[in-house]
């Protein structure tokens, strides 16, 4: 009997390792032979630990499984009569409604089996790129309409062409896997669940732009992802997919807890062994990037999507989507939401569909009050804006951003003045210190917000925060200072009642 248990860090965090051990122990006790395959997660986190059993009718899922459930699962012979029986995972509405392109293999294959990877169409993208040649590979990516999934949304094909057209003795591909936004975990899932797709994507990028060296910059908060990626690189080298023969080397570099290193230029400085401070642009990293050489800095999800684009053709990918947002986005439902998980779908779903229908409302069962879209620098959306379609431009038009695809749901117990204060506090904590608006404005904003919460000269202080936000937005060197106004101003605009409540005065006095 073959059983599948996720090794994803979030599944482990809720007991997947204990389940794997319990399954082995029970099998031994019963004298049964079982093979336990550790996979990535399917991304249905409210059902984790979710295990699957191989049957002639396909895989059958059970979850959420606690160690105490294991004997009964064996007693029921992993059949439909067990109360945790979920049926075929592909038939679960949350998965059935998805269009899995980037995450096609995640949760299904053994992340460290190249044989599994190939058996599930892995490797076809790089093969096709090689047969097309570098220039046509870039054309294919441009045709797909793929835009940077880190949040900036810059067209990947255009970035690659810029690097390819810049003459240099040495070029680099850098994968930005410094996924620091709260509410996002897609990079982590793909690195832990399907590392070879990222390696393939980077190899394609290297081939297309003429780079022989790639770096994957992973945040230190992701030790599991670091381990899996490093092991996957060794396995790929052993088969000649990386290394001298492939004319492409990959190396993992681990961050050190600085959020700002998710900003591409500060990431490059960090890779160079410096303080992770933001560089002024121009020059663009595509012209002068890592060690002053032309560099393609791409988000992990952008790179992990490239193999499928090459394999299936750019037009097939571009056929999906909404407006100028083409293809699919792995949307991450997080926080106080009933069905928290990764939902990959073509752009265009409304925020209401995502949160109320797919997410199933809050985990607490209370009404949804606010949704922060796009991480700590993203706006808080009230229910009144739930008709916003999932699209880079539509979110921008409502003074928000889709960012890296996170949606953090809050119920009606949230205090939006506290959330606005937190946004400024976070900016102060993580500012690299290079530009004044971010370094000082964040602290000043936090102090002013404290006065508002205490009820001191509310109108004047709110005007001051608004003025400060304008300075942050237009005068900061990067998105940390530049986008902090989004959560702050959206909280003030959409939830003004929270900035003038007597109970806040009492709470602040604590």
């Amino acid at each position, binding site marked *: 009997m073959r059983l599948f248990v996720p090794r994803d860090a979030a599944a482990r965090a809720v007991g997947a390792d204990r389940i794997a051990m319990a399954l082995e122990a029970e099998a031994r006790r019963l004298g049964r032979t079982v093979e336990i395959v550790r996979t990535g997660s399917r991304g249905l986190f409210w059902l984790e630990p979710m295990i699957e059993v191989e049957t002639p009718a396909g895989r059958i899922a059970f979850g959420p499984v606690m160690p105490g459930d294991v004997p009964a699962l064996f007693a029921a012979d992993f059949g439909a009569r067990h109360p945790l029986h979920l049926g075929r995972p592909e038939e679960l509405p949350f998965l059935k409604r998805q269009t899995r392109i980037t995450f096609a293999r995640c949760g299904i294959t053994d992340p460290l089996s190249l044989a599994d990877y190939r058996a599930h169409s892995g490797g076809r993208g790089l093969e096709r790129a090689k047969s097309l040649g570098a220039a046509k590979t870039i054309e294919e990516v441009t045709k797909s309409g793929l835009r940077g999934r880190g949040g900036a949304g810059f067209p990947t094909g255009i970035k690659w062409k810029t690097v390819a057209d810049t003459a240099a003795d040495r070029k680099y591909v850098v994968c930005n896997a410094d996924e620091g936004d709260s509410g996002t975990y897609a990079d982590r899932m793909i690195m832990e669940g399907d590392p070879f797709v990222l390696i393939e994507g980077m190899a394609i990028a290297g081939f297309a732009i003429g780079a022989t060296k790639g770096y994957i910059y992973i945040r230190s908060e992701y030790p599991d992802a670091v381990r899996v990626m490093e092991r996957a690189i060794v396995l790929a080298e052993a088969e000649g997919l990386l290394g001298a023969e492939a004319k492409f080397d990959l190396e993992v570099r681990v961050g050190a807890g600085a959020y700002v290193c998710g900003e591409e230029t500060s990431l490059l400085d960090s890779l160079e062994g410096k303080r992770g401070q933001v560089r002024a642009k121009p020059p663009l990293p595509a012209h002068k990037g890592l060690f002053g050489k032309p560099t393609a800095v791409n988000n992990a999800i952008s790179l992990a999507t490239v193999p499928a684009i090459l394999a299936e053709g750019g037009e097939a990918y571009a056929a999906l989507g909404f407006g100028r947002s083409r293809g699919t986005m792995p949307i991450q439902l997080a926080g106080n939401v009933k069905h928290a998980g*990764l939902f990959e779908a073509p752009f265009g779903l409304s925020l209401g569909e995502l949160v109320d229908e797919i997410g199933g409302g809050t985990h607490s069962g209370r009404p949804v009050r606010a949704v922060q879209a796009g991480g700590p620098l993203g706006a808080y959306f009230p229910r009144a804006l739930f008709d916003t379609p999932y699209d880079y431009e539509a979110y921008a038009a409502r003074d928000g951003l889709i960012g890296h695809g996170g949606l953090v749901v809050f119920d009606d117990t949230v205090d939006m003045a506290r959330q606005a204060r937190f946004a400024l506090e976070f900016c102060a904590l993580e500012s690299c210190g290079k530009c004044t608006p971010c370094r000082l404005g964040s602290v000043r904003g936090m102090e002013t917000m404290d006065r508002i919460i205490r009820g001191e000269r509310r109108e004047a202080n709110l005007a001051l925060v608004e003025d400060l936000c304008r300075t942050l937005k237009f005068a900061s060197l990067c998105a940390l200072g530049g986008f902090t106004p989004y959560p702050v101003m959206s909280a003030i605009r959409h939830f003004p009642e929270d900035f003038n409540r007597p109970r806040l005065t009492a709470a602040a006095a604590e």
Partner: protein
Amino acid sequence: MFLAWNEAQALEIIRRHDGREGPLLPILHDMQAMFGCVPVEAVSFIASAMNLTRAEVHGVASFYHDFREQPAGRHMLKLCRAEACQSMGGEAVAAKVLKQFGVGWGGTTADGSLTVEATYCLGLCACAPSAMLDGEPMARLDQASVDAIAQEVGR
């Protein structure tokens, strides 16, 4: 489990990264893994070995939240304080943890058994609130998790 500062080990670490481009962060990580922190001695040593100024090395080591000048407690608990965990009552759990162990953020218990640090996102946002104990992920934290942490660190 950490070694006391010694130059032989430090030199070994620097040699390990010979030929690497921009090796300072990997070196600092390895120093901290070996000595439990990046001691002042390490800053001077790295500077002279890499032909950098002490100011440059100190500037880098002090920029990143991860690097410490003093070793932490025997166990390290990183509690997430970011938005997704806030939305699931993470601050209340954090308050319980700090109270139970009698420490503030960044503090170490008097017996040196545990250091509690704030972190901003562990990518476990679909199972919030979350934490990491000695590098192992924990999620859906509640009172039972706090008790499990206490047991694990022997308090």
